[in-house]
């Protein structure tokens, strides 16, 4: 069954400065939706607003049902913040149990973790830690996953593997992702939004991205 996540009517301002004012984002299961924008344009804020942890005027709907605090229903929506969020004392085994992930499948895909089942995540390197967090959010059962800068701290080989994982996993869920490594984002996403001056623009080609002033060829 296909599901649709829609967000609009978002109004966000800090100290009188409008951050988000005219937003429409649609994300469907089976598709990867990219969100690009310069620093400070409100990409992370938009994700937190959709997730429900940042209070703002908004309308977030999943299958036309409105949700104000979607995070209270992990079966609907999971969120990978741009920083490390898993408590460092937890072992890989415990994380897999909590997120209902098969550790064997994980270690097959990422063999570097094969002998680290009982190791605390605090002992991992930055890249390994990011990989575990990303895998947990992407693989845990839910309709949608919001990924804020998923490629940060990852090396090129890991990025390639993560891209394969995301393309594979989009069969099971809708993925909304934002990252400054825009070439990696463009390579895997089916729809792309650009956030400029608090407004979202649906980009259809590289020239749109250039016209809107995000990147140059």
């Amino acid at each position, binding site marked *: 069954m296909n599901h649709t996540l829609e967000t609009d009517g978002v109004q966000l301002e800090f100290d009188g400065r409008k951050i988000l004012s005219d937003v429409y984002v649609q994300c469907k299961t089976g598709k990867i939706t990219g969100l690009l924008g310069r620093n400070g344009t409100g990409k992370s804020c938009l994700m937190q607003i959709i997730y429900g942890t940042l209070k703002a005027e908004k309308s977030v709907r999943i299958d036309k049902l409105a949700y104000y605090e979607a995070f209270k229903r992990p079966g609907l929506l999971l*969120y990978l913040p741009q920083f490390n969020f898993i*408590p460092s004392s937890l072992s890989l085994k415990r994380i897999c149990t909590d997120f209902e992930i098969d550790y064997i499948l994980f270690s097959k895909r990422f063999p570097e973790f094969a002998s680290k089942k009982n190791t605390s995540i605090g002992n991992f390197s930055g890249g390994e830690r990011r990989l575990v967090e990303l895998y947990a959010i992407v693989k845990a059962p839910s309709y949608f996953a919001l990924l804020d800068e998923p490629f940060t701290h990852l090396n090129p080989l890991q990025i390639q593997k993560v891209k394969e994982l995301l393309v594979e996993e989009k069969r099971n869920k809708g993925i909304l992702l934002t990252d400054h490594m825009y070439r990696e984002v463009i390579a895997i996403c089916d729809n792309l939004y650009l956030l400029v001056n608090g407004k979202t623009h649906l980009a259809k080609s590289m020239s749109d991205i250039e016209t809107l002033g995000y990147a140059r060829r």
Partner: protein
Amino acid sequence: MHQINDWHLNIVPGVQHLICVRCVLMTWYKKPGFQAQEASMHFHASFLRQLCDCGKVYKNNNIGCSFIQVVMNIFSRMKFLKTIRIIGTFYKSFLLASVLVTACCLGLFWQYGFSIFAVIFWLKAATLAVTFYFINKYKSKEYYYYQNLGLSKALLWGTIIAFDFSLFILLIIQLYKFK
């Protein structure tokens, strides 16, 4: 009769069948007059803004599938245990501080008796408030872990404060009896 709200989980993705968690909890505790089989599972055809009349709904919508009921019951029980385990993980991050404060309060109570009860009560409350402040300041990023598992800040703190204070009061009463 109670309102269908967050107590009810959508257990089958895409299918709007809801399990009444409150009723399942009651079956675990086997309250008198509450039949486990009757209360184990209620299927509701519609989603929000309806009233859940447990007995009535069961009689009207009895799907008569005991296997599904048993499976769903186990599923819910596992969910409950998982929630407790996750809250325990959060509690562990400041357990030592909490135990030390409780021990100090008990020591003072042992020394001075009931005359000092108000002081140690507010001492315990103040230290909990300080703990809340420091966790929010230095470990706020970790809240996303719990939120991704379906536990809000309010649920985490509400459960822990209720448990910690109950334990504190219980220990004071026990100490008073022992004395």
